[in-house]
Structure formats: C-alpha cells, structure tokens
C-alpha cells in the first residue's frame, strides 16, 4: 500500500472516530458546524498573522536596503576622493549587510507564498462550510436519524478531511511565522541596540566621519585657492590703474604744453600776417582741451 493510501486512511480514521462519538447524527451536525466556524476564524487569523510578519519583514528589508545604498554611495565618494582604502571598507560592510538582506528576501518570498496558500485554504474551507450548512439543513429536515447517518457520513468525512488539511496548513504557517518573528525580533534588537547601526551608518559612522573630514579639508583648500586667485587678480588691476593715471598725467602735461605753445603762437601771429599753422595749432588745442583738462 502506497503513501497516498496510508495518508488517506489516517484522515478517514480521524473522521470515523469523530462520527462514532455522535449519538444522534442530526444533533451533532450543528456541533460540527460550530467547530467548522471556529476553524474558519482560526485560519483567517492565521492569514492576518502571516501578513503581519510579512509586513514587518518588509520594513526590515527596506531598512537594510537603505543601508546598503548608503554604503555604496560612501564607497563611490571615497573612490572619487582617491581613498581606495575607505571605499574597500565601505564595500566590505555592504557585502555583510547584503548577505543579511538576501536571506531576509528569501524568507520574505516564502512567507508571501505561505500567505497566499493559507488565504486560498481559507476560501476553500469557507466554500465547504457553506456547502455543509446547506446539506445539514436538508438532512435535518428530510431524514430520520437512521437515514441521516449514511448521508451525513460522506459530508462529514469530506469536510473533516478539509479541516484536517487546513489544520495542518495553520500549523505550518504558525511554525513559519514563529521562526520569522524570532528572527525579526533579533534583528530589531540589533538595530535598536545600535550594534548594526554602528557597523553600518548613523552618528558613529566612521567612514562618513572620514569622508566629512576630507570634505571639510577640501573645503578649506578650495577657499584658500579662491583667495589666492582673487589676490593674484587684484594686483594687475592696480598696475592697470597706475598706467591709466600716468597716461592721463601725460595727457595733462601735453595739453598744458600745447596751450603754452598756442598762446605763444597767438601772441606772435597778431602783429604779422595770418598763419595757417598757428590757427591749426590753436584749434587743435581747443579740441584737446575738454578731454585733456576736466574742469
């Protein structure tokens, strides 16, 4: 006899034992229906419990994901700053977190499967419980105790098999969520105690501290460079301004010289005939005048 038959016989034996306890099958149908409703409640609670565990796991996965992202960024920043040693340290820590993360993700997926299975089992049980209720009312209304017995047997065996299966599914789900809760609790404690936080990030993050220190150092260097550049630029500007004032001084000197010459020419030209050159010189002096000598 194969495994299938033997398992089936065990299920049947359970159902038969329960049936044997019934004195008037019609009365016990109501009792059986009550236990079915209770199991239905239990399997629904089971679905909710698995969902809670799954969500908690989801939160932890997200937290760890953020931490690996941060370490990745730090590694890039370190490498950009020419600190391969620091980048290596960040990547090593990231690898440690990644192992945890992969593990959690696998568990998360298996919990999702469990949740889906239990939810389907709950729907199947609901359908059978509804069918059983209808059957029960028919049997109670239509048959005598003796006639009812055989009709009840099949329905009862069918639903007790389903209940046995759902009961097993609930046990499996409970075991899995209990394991998951223990794990999630340990990880939460690790995070709360700061042990993981210290290792990865947070206020005591030595990689970030080093990067910040380097960042601040670079800031000072940049400012120094900036100041040097500003100083270097302001010197030639002074020279330029010196040139301009010298040039304007020269222009002033020339204007004065021109004016003196023009006056001399004016004086000299008056007794004699008209002199084109002196007139030209005079007009040139007048043109030069407003530019050369501001009043």
């Amino acid at each position, binding site marked *: *006899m*194969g*495994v*299938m*038959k*033997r*398992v*089936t016989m*065990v*299920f*049947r*034996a*359970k*159902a038969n034992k*329960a049936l044997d306890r019934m004195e008037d099958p019609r009365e016990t149908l109501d009792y059986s229906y009550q*236990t079915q409703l209770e199991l239905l409640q239990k399997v629904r609670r089971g679905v909710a419990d698995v969902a809670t565990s799954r969500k908690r796991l989801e939160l932890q996965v997200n937290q760890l994901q953020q931490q690996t992202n941060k370490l990745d960024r730090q590694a890039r920043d370190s490498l950009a700053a020419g600190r391969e040693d620091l980048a290596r340290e960040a990547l090593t820590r990231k690898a440690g977190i990644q192992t945890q993360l992969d593990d959690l993700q696998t568990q998360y997926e298996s919990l999702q499967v469990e949740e889906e*299975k239990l939810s*389907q*089992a709950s*729907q*199947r049980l609901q*359908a*059978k419980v*509804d*069918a*059983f209720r209808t*059957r029960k009312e028919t049997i109670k209304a239509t048959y005598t105790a003796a006639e009812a017995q055989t009709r009840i047997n*099949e*329905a009862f*065996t*069918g*639903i007790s*098999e389903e*209940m*046995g*299966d759902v*009961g*097993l*599914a609930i*046990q*499996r789900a409970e075991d899995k969520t209990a394991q998951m809760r223990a794990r999630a609790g340990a990880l939460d404690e690790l995070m709360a105690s700061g042990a993981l936080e210290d290792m990865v990030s947070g206020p005591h993050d030595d990689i970030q501290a080093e990067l910040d220190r380097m960042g601040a150092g670079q800031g000072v260097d940049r400012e120094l460079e900036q100041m040097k550049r500003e100083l270097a630029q302001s010197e030639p500007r002074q020279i330029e301004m010196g040139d301009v004032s010298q040039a304007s001084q020269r222009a002033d000197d020339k204007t004065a010289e021109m004016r003196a010459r023009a006056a001399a020419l004016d004086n000299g030209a008056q007794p004699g005939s008209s002199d084109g050159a002196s007139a030209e010189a005079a007009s040139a002096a007048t043109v030069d005048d407003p530019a050369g000598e501001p009043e």
Partner: protein
Amino acid sequence: MIVRILGEGQFEVADSAVAELNNLDAALEAAVDRNDEDAFRPALAALLAKIEAVGTPAKPDDLRPSELIIPQPDATMADVRRLLTDEGLIPG
C-alpha cells in the same frame, strides 16, 4: 476520482491515470521505507507533477472525501512519517 494534495486542495483525476499514480507512489513509499532522502524528493515531485498534469482542480464546495491524499510539495520525509501515524500531524 478525487485526489487531495495537502495544502493545495482537491483534484479530479480520471480513473485511467490511477495505475500510473500508483507506480509513482510505490517509488515514493520505497524511498520512505529505505529512509532515502535523495530518492524521496524527486519521487514526491514526480507524483505531484503527475497529479497536476492529469487532474483538474475540484470545485471548492464539493463535499466528497478524497480517495487518495498526497503530502504537500515541501514535505520532508519526517513530515510524511508523522502523517502516517495516527497521533501524527493531523489535528483534531
């Protein structure tokens, strides 16, 4: 004929497929009896795959009991052994 895969629900399987299922089941049982974990897993997988291939899911409100019940896909050999004892896994 109705066959149940634990945790997966019931399947309607044509009677003509029973001989084939019994052969696969015999291999599974031999693996359990020999305590042969390496043979157990593929034997269980083959049996389950066969049922899913030849069977169609039964209506969920069908109250008929199953003629054959197969352990769930992730069952271990220890799970199967406990299923086979009266005080085993099955609650109530």
